[in-house]
């Protein structure tokens, strides 16, 4: 692996983490949206709020991490992509603003009307944000971002079959991950009926996600031939791994092994993303800009490597502390 590849791999690992953790938070919002009326959906919404409340801000930072590593290590490709895709990115940023603010503000008000309004804003933006981010990935993956500044079509770069597929898959994956993660959370707190309800949601969205993903291969064949070739060529083992992990996760859900189901689901989603990366390797921007061409100077990449290593030493224990603290059942009596 070259230095540039290591740095890009770090950014990619950040993207995977964002998809798994940040994605599940968005998925929580999707289930909030679909939870039904205030009376009926109360317990589901409450469960979601308790699960993502302490962690969503930390999970969100993965996105910032990806952006800053890319603009430092792959400045030109970054500038090209965000200028061509400025519309969906701005919409995603608005979604992030609405989601985060509404979620935090809802906690701080007690009147039912206000709570409902913030709840609706939180839920709707949780659906739209991953869609736009998925559409951005679709634009990059289908080679619609040329390497110059704002050289691509600012509309068709994200309004196209691959982007539609990317957006839909992103929403489905978020909803699926959230449902799987919430099964375990609900069971841990003794809410077995809720655990079963999320299990059903996970099974259904898991099946739908798999079906859309497989149908999507046909879309890629027609709309993004280079990515398709990469996927069925170099990427094939990863695609197979994703299918196997996904099926395994469904079996684990059926047998209520929620912790293992979380791991299998995370593997399946990670494999989808690795499939995309493998499919377009060695190009950062299809069809011509390679990782090496896009990378900035050696001293910058080295500085990045040092910072990423040192940062990981701080980040890993901190994140562990956060998750361990809030995955632990709340001590009785101190409530």
């Amino acid at each position, binding site marked *: 692996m070259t230095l540039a590849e290591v740095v890009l791999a770090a950014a990619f690992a950040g993207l995977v983490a964002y998809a798994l953790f940040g994605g599940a938070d968005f998925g929580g919002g999707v289930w909030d949206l679909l939870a039904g009326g205030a009376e009926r959906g109360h317990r589901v919404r*409450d469960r979601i709020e308790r699960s993502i409340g*302490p*962690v969503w*801000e*930390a999970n*969100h*930072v993965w*996105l*910032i*991490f990806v*952006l*800053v*590593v890319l*603009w*430092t*290590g792959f*400045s030109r490709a*970054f*500038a*090209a992509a*965000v*200028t*061509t895709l*400025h*519309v969906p*990115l*701005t919409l995603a*940023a*608005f979604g*992030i*603003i*609405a989601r*985060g*603010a509404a*979620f*935090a503000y809802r*906690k*701080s*008000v*007690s009147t039912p009307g206000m709570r409902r309004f913030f709840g609706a804003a939180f839920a709707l933006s949780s659906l739209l944000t991953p869609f736009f981010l998925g559409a951005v990935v679709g634009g990059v993956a289908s080679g619609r971002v040329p390497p110059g*500044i704002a050289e691509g079509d*600012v509309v068709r770069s994200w309004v196209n079959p691959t982007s539609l597929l990317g957006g839909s898959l992103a929403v489905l994956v978020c909803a699926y991950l959230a449902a799987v993660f919430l099964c375990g959370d609900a069971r841990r707190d003794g809410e077995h009926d809720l655990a079963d309800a999320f299990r059903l949601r996970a099974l259904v969205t898991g099946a739908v996600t798999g079906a859309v993903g497989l149908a999507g291969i046909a879309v890629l064949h027609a709309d993004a031939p280079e990515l398709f070739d990469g996927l069925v060529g170099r990427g094939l083992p990863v695609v197979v791994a994703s299918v196997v992990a996904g099926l395994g996760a469904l079996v684990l859900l059926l047998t209520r092994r929620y912790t293992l189901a979380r791991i299998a689901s995370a593997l399946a989603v990670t494999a989808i993303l690795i499939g995309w990366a493998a499919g377009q390797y060695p190009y950062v921007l299809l069809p011509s800009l390679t990782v090496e061409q896009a990378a*900035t*100077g050696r*001293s*910058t990449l080295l*500085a990045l490597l040092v*910072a990423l290593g040192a*940062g990981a030493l*701080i*980040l890993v224990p*901190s*994140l562990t*502390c*956060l998750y361990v*603290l*809030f995955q632990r059942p*709340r001590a009785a009596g*101190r*409530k």
Partner: protein
Amino acid sequence: MLEFLADASENLYPARMQMALSLGWHIVFACFGIAFPAIVVFVEWRGHRRGDEVLIALAHKWAKAMAVLFAAGAVSGTLLSFEMGILWPGLMGRFGEVFGFPFVLEGFAFFVEAIFVGVYLFGWNRLSPRAHMFSALPMVAAGIVGAFCVVSANAWMNNPTGFRLDEQGNVVDARPWSAMFGPSTWAQFVHMWLAAFMVTGFLIASVYAVGMLRGRRDRYHRAGLLIPLTVAALATPVQIGVGDWIANVVADNQPAKLAAMEGQYETTSGAGLSLGGLYRDDRLHYAVEIPYGLSLLIHHDPDGVVPGLEEVPADERPPVNVVHLAYNAMVGIGVALLLLSAWYGLVWWRRRRLPDTAWFLRAVAVSGAGAVVAMEAGWITTEVGRQPWVVYGILRTADAVSPAPGLGWGLVAVAGVYTVLTVFTVVVLRRLARDRDTPVPQEQR
């Protein structure tokens, strides 16, 4: 190529306005991210130490406000990181490898802050009091590191270092570590860091001053005013000294900015310090002048020579009126806040109590807004004062802006989103302030 230029120049105004709006909004919440954790955990610590339920209740209330303020800061900061690329690809694409690096470090600081804000806000019932207070310390540290990194990137734009350009203008030999430590970095960082404590301190104190003016003079309100006001009052005199430092840094490194700040056209020895006025036809009209003031300020010598705008080509001069008046506003409000701090400090020193007049409370009640205006004016001074450059002396703002169609609509949309966001943020914070019960944050249903 001509078409490209036409598009880009049309985008310059909306892009600058969008950036100014987003940054101007975010910076207020960033101040709370930097300064508020330290203040809240101090109150919590004192409350535990003295077994003082009033202080514990205050810490609970402030932690709830912190949840709102931190979320607002986090999401508005995200939009900014998108905008850096969307609006200014000429800056990020070309110089990202030089000055993008501190943002990576800031990313880690933001991570630490976001992780421990979760632990702190949701951990009241899960951690022992001691562990809970310790969980705030990473936030305090991350606030310092994060502020340093972001400000160092801005300082680099003011005084770019850490790279060379080849004949074609391409960046070669980028040295991101040394780019972080240019001549402006330390002065700008300390200035901003203190500003964060002033804004946070005066703003919170002003909330309780309003409450006391309405007759709620219990211990809860007095403590809510005293503690943040003390923090701000300690920071203010230091800030005035740092202001002198940073003015000298600007004089050394960005003479055009300093000349614009003072509305000074001619290079003068024994230059006076001009207050107010309007700059037209290469001179300042209706200004009040303090003789020798500027030379004294910059060189600590009444006959020191201060270069004027005439030294700079006409197309490299910043817009003088905006910079001059913003600078005057910042200094003017800063001095007013210094007087308020001195009033408070004097009475406290002599009598161990707050000044006993409604006028003092009224002054504290407006000090929060004043501190925010002063900080915004300071940012306008440094940002507009750098124009027409985005990278001083190297890259013009007009050459950095994106030529993509639709940026004008982006400004409209951002203005709309921020209007709505501002309204709801204010509504929620007001409700929090009015709500008298103080259970443990984030646990009540």
